[in-house]
């Protein structure tokens, strides 16, 4: 796993299936059989990661959608991506 930064390319793992349920979602890691829950914002980030592997692009989308400072948004995004990378839900690569 590359050291986390906004310049990373992030891709959902091929071993993860996910299900959106009324705005929240549950991810299932098929390799480990472990379920992970995401709240509404986490679900939005996961959805964006399906289309954008560029974290900077994801951040810009989030800033357009939520009233939040760039600093806070970037920190929360990195925290979530870091947690997901640690659990193997996403793969990260340097650009």
């Amino acid at each position, binding site marked *: 796993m590359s050291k986390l930064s906004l310049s990373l390319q992030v891709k959902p793992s091929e071993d993860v299936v996910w*299900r959106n349920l009324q705005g929240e979602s*549950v991810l*299932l890691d*098929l390799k480990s059989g472990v*379920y*992970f*829950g995401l709240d509404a914002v986490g679900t939005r980030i996961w959805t964006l990661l399906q289309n954008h592997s560029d974290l900077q692009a994801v951040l810009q989308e989030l800033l357009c959608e939520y009233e939040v400072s760039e600093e806070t948004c970037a920190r929360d995004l990195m925290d979530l991506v870091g947690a997901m990378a640690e659990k193997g839900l996403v793969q990260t690569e340097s650009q």
Partner: protein
Amino acid sequence: MYDILTYGRMIKDPLRFPAYLEALRRTVKPGSVVLDMGTGPGIMALLACRFGARKVYAIEPDPIIQVAREIAAGNGLAGRIEFIEGFSTHVSLPERVDVIVSDLNGILPWFQQHLRSVADARQRFLAPGGVMIPKKEIVWLGVAESQPAYSEHTQPWEAGHGFEMHAARDLAINTRQLVRLRSEDLLAAPQCGVVLDFMQVEGPDSRADATFVITRPGVGHGLLVWFDCALTDEIFFSNAPGCYRSGYGQTFFPWTRPVSLQSGDVVRLKLRCNLVADDYVYRWTTEVLGKGEKAEVKASFDQSDFHSSPISPASLRKGSEAYVPRCTGDGSIDRFILTSMDGKASVGEIAACLSERFPDRFKERSEALDRVARVSRAYSE
């Protein structure tokens, strides 16, 4: 797991059963020691004895094993067949065996603990030079055209009596089903997806990738999967399209929408099968490319039966890693019963204590007895 009529149908299956019979006849030698995994009513164990087995260990978790015991006794074979109630992965045997026979497939080899059990049994029970029946299973993939099969998934929710019912269609389109198609229903030559060699298989999970070049123009409705079962090097049976005599059928994985396919179009399929808890989650991805240099993407689907069952967000959330569970009232009742199962108190005594502890829930003694009996059946020895 199965009712007696289903066991009867398995024994009457005109393809599978004669193949097993012949495989046992050729493999079991006088004096052989045989393990029959999932013996059901015990027919394989009986046959192994007929063909000369000195000893048969017959393992079965289902209460049908009582019937198997009676049948063995009725045929004078109780002394040669040792019936063991339980899952093979939880069992120890006093000796290694020369032959392991199993018939634990569903309509696909990826069925509950089948592959994990086979791997475990081979490693722990099979003697050097021993034989596994089946020897291997070859899984085939095909691109299917079948409006009738597809309609089962979509038509009830698209007609809708004037209502928009996509929420139901989304589940149905991620649901696989047993079908019995013909070889003419395939739009390209079948491809071997994976070979499961029972002498080597280790884990329960598999992946099968295949690329097809369409040879017959038509409408693609989904992925079709079946398998050839090689009991030995010479004895096979198959549930391929057109094998109507088999009790098995094929598994149809529908596509999100039908795709018009021309000769020369390319279809790339990936099937992932992962054992999660006690059952498999299937994921099938499809990419359809038009023929020619441009290779336009005509369709791209990513589907899974993870999306196939109606489930509440609360229920799924409760299974997620970070969820902090708190025991409900019902859970407290079962916890009380489990704690009381100390090897000293009887079911009746526990039921009496249960009624006293939860008087609002158990007004009748029979209610408490039923509840304790249910837990006792599941967790006592």
